[in-house]
């Protein structure tokens, strides 16, 4: 009996201290964010940080409908800006990185490719994220249009729901090549095979990514701490490792 009481007390004591936040993050952040969260949790033991990955557009809709996310990391800063305008954010939309797109293949040597290699008849399927709502897909479309390849390769295009889904089409070999996020191509699992070709950034608009603390996370200290942690040296180092260009950095 005494023991149960003690256990309850202990549980209560930890509960009073520990906080839990849920982060909605764009799929391109999958590997980088996992590492950042691990580091963050180590520096604040006892707290819980949960990350949900998916498409930026979907999270935007869900947050508008009251989804339980405390922080929202979008692949396009336009969405967080929209939330701020609608009064659904508890912070301003803060840029945290610029993304890059690459041509990646699981079975061919993509390092020797350019966008004009896509007309090669050996390539029958090219995966890109859906340009209608995925920021990385929009940039892929812009790049293909900019070098006059869109019309030539359009019949080969297949569309992933988000950038991770797109990478999965290529990884399973169902599409020979895909235009995916550099941050995914640099992950060890994907970097083992094929290789990538970095698409010149002058071919598309910048992928300016931003985050906000949502209204729901307004009173959580942990949410604020995590937002600050994104500016820390270790978080920035991880972001750079995954090919993100950080705001304020001169290239």
């Amino acid at each position, binding site marked *: 009996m005494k023991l149960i009481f003690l256990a309850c007390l202990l549980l209560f004591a930890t509960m009073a201290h520990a906080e839990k936040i849920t982060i909605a993050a764009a799929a391109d952040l999958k590997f980088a964010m996992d590492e950042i969260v691990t580091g963050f949790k180590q520096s604040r033991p006892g707290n819980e940080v949960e990350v949900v990955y998916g498409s930026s557009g979907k999270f935007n809709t869900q947050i508008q409908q009251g989804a339980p996310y405390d922080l929202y990391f979008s692949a396009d800063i336009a969405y967080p800006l929209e939330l701020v305008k609608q009064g659904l954010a508890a912070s301003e939309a803060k840029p945290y990185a610029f993304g890059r797109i690459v041509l990646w293949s699981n*079975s061919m040597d993509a390092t020797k490719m350019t966008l004009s290699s896509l007309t090669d008849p050996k390539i029958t399927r090219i995966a890109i994220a859906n340009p209608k709502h995925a920021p990385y897909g929009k940039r892929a479309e812009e790049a293909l249009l900019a070098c006059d390849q869109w019309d030539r390769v359009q019949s080969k295009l297949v569309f992933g729901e988000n950038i991770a889904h797109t990478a999965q089409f290529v990884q399973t070999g169902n599409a020979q090549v895909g235009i995916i996020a550099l941050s995914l191509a640099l992950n060890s699992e994907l970097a083992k095979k094929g290789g990538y070709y970095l698409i010149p950034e002058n071919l598309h608009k910048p992928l300016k990514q931003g985050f906000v603390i949502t209204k729901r996370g307004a009173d959580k200290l942990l949410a604020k701490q995590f937002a600050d942690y994104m500016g820390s040296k270790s978080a920035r180092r991880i972001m750079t490792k995954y090919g993100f260009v950080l705001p304020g950095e001169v290239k």
Partner: protein
Amino acid sequence: MQLNDSDIQAIWLTVRLASVVTTILLVVGTPIAWWLARTRSRWKGPLGATVALPLVLPPSVLGFYLLLAMGPNGPVGKLTRALGIEALPFTFWGLVLASVFYSLPFMVQPLQNAFETIGDRPLEVAATLRASPLDTFFTVALPMALPGYFTASILTFAHTVGEFGVVLMIGGNIPGVTRVASVQIYDHVEALEYSQAHRLAAVMLIFSFLVLLILYAWRPNSRKG
């Protein structure tokens, strides 16, 4: 109510997919259902369970396995390549194959029930009149199971129309090829085009209700007769 061209294209594609799948399943499902209804084999349990699997399995499981199986390194992918056929993912026929698996129980189970309710007696009578088994099936069992066929076809058609997860995972969202109505609605919602999503969603809602209405309004009469 105004639907744009791509919405109409998606609706037609959905209707075409559901029709093809229903036709294929009528042919494939009949012998399976017949066997399940008449057999005393110990394989009845395992086969029945296999047929029912898609009722329980999340579409993501089916989608995942199909993507791997139909890919260039999977068994189906190797087969299609050996036969010189185009790889199945991202094609209409890939969706057909996936939907045949996905909707299999909706065809087989009503048919099996229909065959079981016929019982042994009419078939024995036919046999004493020297009808061959095939003859018996077409002249006795099939007409008696017609209400079952009606139910099974409608359920299969409707269930294929309602497919989403598997299509999203293996379809690649190609207009006119794999972008069915459910995926089109999802895209509208993702792109925050709520009014367009509403229109197409309303069409689906009305369609689904009408289909079920036909089914439920018709069935009691068939029982009386």
